[in-house]
């Protein structure tokens, strides 16, 4: 569902503030600082960061590889480890059975059960590879506009937070209220009317 896909979903943002000059260096610095790292050698269940639009599995922000003048193009990658609950259950029950047999016991405390489960999840997390999810980003600094190619709530929350950390600029999502607020061609007095609007009723049987 990325930029070049036959079907996409897009959320539009306004970028609040201006990028520090020199633009290319500031953006490269932000992208490199929060570039995705490979998560497979640790047990974190989720890891996120920026990656390249051209090759999202080998992030490289050298030179001006992310500039398609006048656009800045890169991707947000969120890698998630998802361990099937049945796999956890199998390992957990196996470990409990083994402990009971080895120690000739009939009972395992709640605390010990929790400790076993945590260890099983951690051990499986080290072995199971993360699934990458890639969401493309087009940023147009000149117009303070950004398009994000996903409507997923979690992905949008992630880009809003990572963008702020990377470039010290906030993203304002364009929805009916904010889009009206930032539209050109309206005076402040006209925009003030926005805050005073109340719902219209088109129902036939009612009189407004």
């Amino acid at each position, binding site marked *: 569902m990325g*930029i070049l896909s036959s079907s996409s979903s897009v959320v539009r943002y306004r970028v609040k503030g201006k990028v520090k000059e020199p633009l290319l260096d500031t953006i490269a610095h932000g992208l490199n600082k929060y570039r995705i790292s490979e998560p497979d050698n640790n047990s974190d269940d989720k890891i996120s960061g920026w990656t390249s639009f051209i090759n999202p599995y080998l992030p490289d922000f050298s030179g001006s590889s992310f500039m398609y003048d006048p656009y800045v193009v890169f991707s947000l990658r969120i890698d998630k480890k998802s361990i099937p609950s049945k796999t956890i259950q199998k390992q957990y029950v196996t470990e409990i059975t083994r402990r009971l047999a080895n120690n000739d016991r009939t009972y395992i405390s709640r605390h010990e059960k929790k400790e076993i489960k945590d260890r099983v999840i951690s051990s499986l997390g080290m072995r199971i590879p993360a699934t990458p999810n890639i969401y493309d980003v087009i940023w147009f600094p000149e117009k303070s506009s950004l398009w994000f190619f996903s409507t997923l709530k979690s992905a949008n929350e992630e880009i809003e937070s990572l963008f702020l950390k990377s470039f010290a600029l906030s993203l304002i999502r364009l929805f009916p209220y904010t889009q009206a607020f930032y539209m050109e061609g309206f005076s402040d007095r006209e925009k003030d009317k926005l805050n005073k609007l109340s719902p219209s009723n088109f*129902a036939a049987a009612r009189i407004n």
Partner: protein
Amino acid sequence: MLDISVAYNRFRFIGQEFLTWLWYMIATGRYTDIIDKDKNISLSIGDRMVLENRNSKDIEIITIKGNQADLKEGMVALTKGALVAELSLVIHVNDLPWKLTLKGESLDMTNLKTPATGRPETADDLEGAFLEKVDLYETSFHITEQLYHNFFKQRISNDWDNRIKTKIKTWIETQN
């Protein structure tokens, strides 16, 4: 400007009124008065519409889908006080088609299909393919923004209560 999350919930009705207005503008052909005259643009309702009625105690959701979908059910919902929550739109510019679904509460675009472009064969083709695709996205964004701009202009004018709302209500009544 109000706090973003407060504004999102308090003014979600604006987006739904926009989509309801847009259906009226398309059905009556009035949209031709407000979009670029120098381009050959036509708009039509696509294969999906979702209506939401928050007037009753429970939220009522009506989904209409299919290429030959009869929008009569949607009209009945409007008379009961529902608003359009999601609308599939087909835009033709010089006979080239764009298809998309607009969500009222967020104005997010989903299932956005632009006219077909060639797939890049080499890395060198990529920049050209990218810029071509961005240009196609820009076209659909520009048209939907222009529509929303016009809606908002009407919505904050005195004409909304005095004239436009009555016209939309009359249109709904005559369709049932």
